[in-house]
């Protein structure tokens, strides 16, 4: 094009802390400027490439992709950095030189593959090239020796598959800046020798200070060199932002990257690096030509050469990277051969007898029909290999002894159920295959596997071992700036001190950076902060800068669960870099996968699965063959093996004890239903069947709650309101949910029933409801009106259609996938079942893996409430786990050494390896704990059992009573204080001079030292372990609480609604769920040792309470009780106070 221009060096925001514009915005700008192609060349990777290609395809532009990568310095020359800044105070390690690589296109993917592999190599530099880098993203880890480029970028015929751009920051460009033209020529010749036909010189002019890179002189010299050497020269603008205004954002990013404030950070030389329109670029060409002594003809040649290179690099998404074409591992990788569809069908059919052992013939036939229908769809898509792969992975995981369960819409597939990928029977729960794998799908479906969190890395490694590194990679995740991080980096850029930044950033809770200004104005708890900081004019500027960072990528990290499984061409498709988890990571994220056709498995480490596994192991260990008896189960329960192993996936779904527990709302620790809001819902709903649990999980989400779908469901379930169906034909579909539409599957069935369309098409319509409700409505009305019965009469009248559509429209986007909810509900049920039947083992599992939302100390309160004694930390008994132990009071849980602050793994190992200990001094000598550790252990009573000796003789112990000691804990603490005060710790070295050997503490132990007071003990407990091991912390405030008239949380249920009360406790949860009204409501839960009080603060209460609401751990709350159901009560708060401060004031007044 005579007057067009294609920018070939463009960095997007996916070049972390460098670019400021999204790939989409850049493409839009190029399109608006009349371009026919658009290029993206991010730093160190293809992070933005897929988004770029997608945006190009949508805009009708041809995509070009490349990368900008650092090169290692060869001996001599100017591979090192030239510092541009005239301010010399920024201490910088010299930064390496850098070149661009543009993949050629329409070559069967050779250019893309070469570039991809080159990037991977750059991210795995050999030891010799690894540098010790200071912190900050300005220091990039990827670097490649120029000598290695040809290995990646030359095809088998010796022709290049990509073009290397040698720009101002290359070794060539840097030599030119210092005026060393001959060195520059040597360097350039080196490149053209290594990559004949694959090199171009990149001319960039940012009008910088003469004598610096990207100055007019530099650009001219670069061009002259290219002409002299006969190498093509192209013009770019080395773009990093869209508009000149964005340069400010670039400055802030540069400061953040260098971890220095503006002024000390090396700043960009000006604001010229923007996406200049074609006319300006052509004018620039002419200016440089003029300076270099070239004419207009040469200027046009430069632009023409740029377009020629662009042509060479235009990608063919389908031909080059198999755009949207599914890629699954080859059958050989699964250890199979033959026809994948036949293998799949055979395995699934064979599994029917196992999954449906005693099914009557009617059920059996339904199962077979459903299976054949699913297999037909799978065959139609050619997805058999996909299912076999996922089944293989599930088998692999199970073979490792690790719990695995599918989640998501995949639970709706009978094939998945038969292949043991999921544990939920789709026929029993009315789940639909079409919701998982519909008719219009061209890319692979999505299956998520939940595994034990503690074993997740083992699982990843096992998958790599099985399929090979060339078929497996983890997935990347782009972390973006939110309000806190944006405020922090903006503050650092402006040179604010850490404390001031911390105060501001710490109060910004779950906001987008662009909303900070509004939050400072609206939120009562920020009012004081806003005033205090508001005196400073730079706050306004900070907020502006933070807003600019809103949602920009901040850094890339490993996605916590995504795993890519592909055919052997994976590494030709995606660059990989180290993940920090031992398995390499693709540079693409979850939104890129579909377009690349890659199989992504989300292998989620779910701590609850680890808890389940742990609890189960404890049951088997403690009870063995008597497991059924211990759990109150029938001795012939088929899901309990003779050796005590329980098949948690085979539990009966109608266990009364489990539902009784759930209905009590004492569901701390139970999966998904332990939050205050869930406890309230469950209390109101009173579930009595598994389907109710599925409904509960589906309803407890922002959409249904805001749209007030929950109350109608509860009212109908409890019989307060009669169940009505929009039409009798819909009764079978909605009977299970009392006439209320909750699930996607129900919508599918309704559309199918009314419109006569297939279920797969119904799923398309359901998805379309989100984008174009009007179109779906039109189709619905037309086709439903056209439905006739055998007599030719309309099945649905006009009134019927209106009524049904109102229901569907109201349902809108609020429905939930029942398969997903069913998979969740199953884990909910399993955990509730365990809590009901094996509370001690269950709580041990919860304490061990900490899966829920509550802190450990609250779980300990729950243990006490359930009558499960918590056995103290004891250096002779405790381990590094929570262990179920038989105690005189029943099954208890021995607390773990892990909980002691500051204890190291080495110290724990020593304590465990060298026991038993006979005396405190023996422990101090042989376990060699640090002074701080032994002092803490003494303070919490972990050494009490060692103080049993009296004058060297162990006193008789009652067989029933606790061990008696002649010494108090106060004695132990005092003794330890003496031990640690000694200048030399007694050592266990054999060649040491004979010290008096402390076999027996008794002669040196004091006697009769008073014990710590309860308040002192609680303080010591909290200091040592962050949990009360004796009295709840609230007890320290008992006198004040009594004077005020505070009610224990457990006693609230006995009160009538609307009683005014005071409650107090330590904050264990703070939530601001979305509300129907749109106004913010703050929910606080307070633990006072007797239970949990749930308090709700509406607008006035928030204003009255101020910053106390979010900032203070111990609270006193005044409010009125509100019953929320048969077993539910909460407090509608009027005001909250800082309990600690009140206590201080109160004590002072008393003393006065």
């Amino acid at each position, binding site marked *: 094009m005579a007057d067009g221009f294609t920018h070939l060096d463009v960095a997007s925001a996916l070049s972390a802390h460098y670019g400021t514009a999204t790939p989409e915005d850049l493409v839009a700008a190029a399109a608006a400027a009349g371009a026919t192609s658009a290029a993206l060349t991010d730093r160190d990777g293809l992070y933005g490439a897929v988004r770029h290609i997608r945006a190009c395809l949508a805009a009708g532009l041809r995509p070009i992709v490349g990368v900008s990568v650092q090169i290692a310095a060869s001996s001599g020359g100017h591979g090192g950095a030239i510092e541009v800044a005239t301010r010399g105070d920024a201490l910088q390690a010299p930064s390496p030189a850098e070149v661009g690589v543009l993949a050629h296109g329409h070559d069967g993917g050779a250019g893309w593959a070469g570039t991809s592999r080159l990037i991977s190599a750059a991210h795995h530099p050999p030891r010799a090239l690894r540098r010790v880098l200071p912190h900050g993203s300005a220091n990039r880890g990827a670097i490649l020796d120029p000598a290695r480029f040809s290995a990646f970028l030359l095809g088998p015929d010796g022709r290049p598959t990509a073009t290397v751009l040698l720009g101002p920051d290359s070794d060539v460009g840097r030599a030119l800046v210092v005026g060393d033209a001959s060195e520059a020529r040597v360097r350039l010749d080196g490149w053209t020798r290594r990559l004949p036909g694959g090199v171009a010189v990149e001319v960039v002019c940012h009008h910088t*200070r003469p004598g610096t890179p990207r100055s*007019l002189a530099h650009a001219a010299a670069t061009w002259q060199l290219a002409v002299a050497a006969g190498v093509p020269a192209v013009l770019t603008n080395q773009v990093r932002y869209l508009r000149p205004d964005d340069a*400010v*954002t670039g*400055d802030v990013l540069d400061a953040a990257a260098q971890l220095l404030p*503006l002024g000390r950070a090396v700043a960009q030389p*000006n604001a010229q690096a923007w996406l200049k329109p074609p006319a300006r670029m052509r004018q620039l060409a002419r200016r440089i030509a003029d300076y270099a002594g070239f004419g207009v003809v040469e200027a046009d040649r430069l632009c023409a050469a740029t377009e020629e290179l662009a042509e060479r690099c235009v990608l063919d998404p389908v031909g080059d990277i198999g755009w949207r074409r599914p890629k699954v591992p080859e059958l050989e990788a699964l250890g199979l051969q033959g026809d994948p569809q036949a293998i799949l069908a055979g395995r699934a059919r064979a599994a029917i007898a196992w999954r449906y052992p005693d099914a009557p013939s009617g059920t059996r036939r339904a199962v077979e029909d459903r299976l054949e229908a699913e297999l037909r769809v799978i065959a139609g898509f050619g997805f058999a290999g996909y299912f076999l792969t996922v089944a293989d992975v599930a088998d692999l995981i199970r073979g490792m002894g690790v719990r695995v369960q599918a989640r998501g819409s995949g639970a709706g597939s009978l094939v998945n159920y038969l292949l043991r990928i999921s544990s939920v029977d789709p026929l029993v729960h009315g789940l639909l295959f079409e919701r998982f794998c519909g008719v219009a799908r061209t890319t692979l479906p999505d299956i998520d596997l939940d595994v034990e969190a503690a074993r997740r890395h083992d699982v990843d490694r096992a998958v790599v071992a099985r399929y090979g590194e060339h078929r497996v990679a983890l997935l990347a995740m782009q972390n973006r700036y939110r309000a806190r991080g944006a405020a922090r980096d903006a503050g650092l850029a402006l040179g604010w001190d850490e404390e001031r930044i911390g105060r501001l950033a710490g109060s910004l809770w779950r906001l987008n950076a662009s909303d900070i200004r509004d939050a400072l104005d609206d939120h009562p708890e920020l009012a004081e902060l806003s005033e205090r900081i508001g005196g400073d004019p730079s706050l306004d*500027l900070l907020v502006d800068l933070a807003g600019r960072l809103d949602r920009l990528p901040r850094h890339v990290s490993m996605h916590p669960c995504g795993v890519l499984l592909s055919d052997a061409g994976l590494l030709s498709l995606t660059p990989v870099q180290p993940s920090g988890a031992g398995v390499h990571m693709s540079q693409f994220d979850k939104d890129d996968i579909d377009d690349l056709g890659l199989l992504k498995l989300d292998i989620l480490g779910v701590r609850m699965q680890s808890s389940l596994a742990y609890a189960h192991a404890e049951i088997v260990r403690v009870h063995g063959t008597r497991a059924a008896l211990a759990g109150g189960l029938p001795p012939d329960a088929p899901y309990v093996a003779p050796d005590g192993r329980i098949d948690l996936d085979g539990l009966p779904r109608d266990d009364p004890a489990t539902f009784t527990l759930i209905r009590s709302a004492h569901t701390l620790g139970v999966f998904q239903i332990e939050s205050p809001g869930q406890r309230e819902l469950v209390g109101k709903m009173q579930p009595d069947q598994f389907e109710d649990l599925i409904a509960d999980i589906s309803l407890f989400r922002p959409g249904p709650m805001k749209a007030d779908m929950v109350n109608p469901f509860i009212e109908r379930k409890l019989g307060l309101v009669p169940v009505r169906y929009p039409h009798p034909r819909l009764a079978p579909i909605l009977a299970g949910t009392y006439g209320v539409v909750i699930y996607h599957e129900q919508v599918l069935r309704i559309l199918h029933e009314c419109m006569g369309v297939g279920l797969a098409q119904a799923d398309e319509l359901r998805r379309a409801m989100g984008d174009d409700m009007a179109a779906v409505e039109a189709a619905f009305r037309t086709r439903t009106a056209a439905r006739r019965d055998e007599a030719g009469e309309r099945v649905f009248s006009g009134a019927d259609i209106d009524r049904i559509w109102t229901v569907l429209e109201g349902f809108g986007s609020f429905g939930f996938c029942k398969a997903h909810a069913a998979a969740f509900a199953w884990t909910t049920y399993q955990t509730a079942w365990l809590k009901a039947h094996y509370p001690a083992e269950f709580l041990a599992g919860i304490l061990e893996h900490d899966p829920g939302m509550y802190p450990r100390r609250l779980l300990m309160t729950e243990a006490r409430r359930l009558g499960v004694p918590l056995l103290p930390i004891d250096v002779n008994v405790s381990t590094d786990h929570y262990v179920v132990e038989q105690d005189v009071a029943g099954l208890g849980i021995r607390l773990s050494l892990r909980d002691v602050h500051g204890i190291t793994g080495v110290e724990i190992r020593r304590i465990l390896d060298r026991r038993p200990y006979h005396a405190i001094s023996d422990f101090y000598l042989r376990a060699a704990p640090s002074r701080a550790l032994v002092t803490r252990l003494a303070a919490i009573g972990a050494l009490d059992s060692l103080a049993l000796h009296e004058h060297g003789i162990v006193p008789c112990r009652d067989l029933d009573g606790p061990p008696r000691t002649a010494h108090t804990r106060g004695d132990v603490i005092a003794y330890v204080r003496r031990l640690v005060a000694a200048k030399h710790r007694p050592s266990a070295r054999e060649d040491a001079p004979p010290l008096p050997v402390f076999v027996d503490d008794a002669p040196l132990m004091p006697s009769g030292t008073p014990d710590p007071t309860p308040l002192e003990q609680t303080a010591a407990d909290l200091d040592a372990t962050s949990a009360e091991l004796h009295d709840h912390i609230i007890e320290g405030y008992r006198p004040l609480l009594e004077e005020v008239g505070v009610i224990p949380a457990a006693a609230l249920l006995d009160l009538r609604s609307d009683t005014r009360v005071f409650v107090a406790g330590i904050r264990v949860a703070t939530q601001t769920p979305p509300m129907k009204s749109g106004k913010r409501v703050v929910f606080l839960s307070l633990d006072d040792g007797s239970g949990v009080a749930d308090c709700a603060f509406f607008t006035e209460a928030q204003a009255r309470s101020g910053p106390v609401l979010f900032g203070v751990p111990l609270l006193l709350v005044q409010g009125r009780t509100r019953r929320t159901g048969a077993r539910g009560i909460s407090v509608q708060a009027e005001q909250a106070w800082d309990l600690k401060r009140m206590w201080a004031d109160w004590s002072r007044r008393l003393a006065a």
Partner: protein
Amino acid sequence: MVDEPTVVWATPSGAPERLEWRGRRWLVCARPVPWIDRVPWWLGVPRAPKGGAAGLVEQPMWRVQAMDSSGSDVVGLDLAVGTTGDWWRVTRVYE
């Protein structure tokens, strides 16, 4: 580095031709080179909202060779284009 006021006479396209500086008159004797410097906007600017900061970062400059009226003194100068009339600033002197 310096920061000295100067009065500049420029061509219609903005290139400096003559200037008065340090009490003397100077003539630009070689082709001046335009370039663009940056300013530390964070030191003084009250606001920088997205979309509203286009002019904040840059300072147009000219690198000139100037000869005094006697013809004996020649210096290199960095001139920062002024915003008000003919008053510019000399930011660097190269002997």
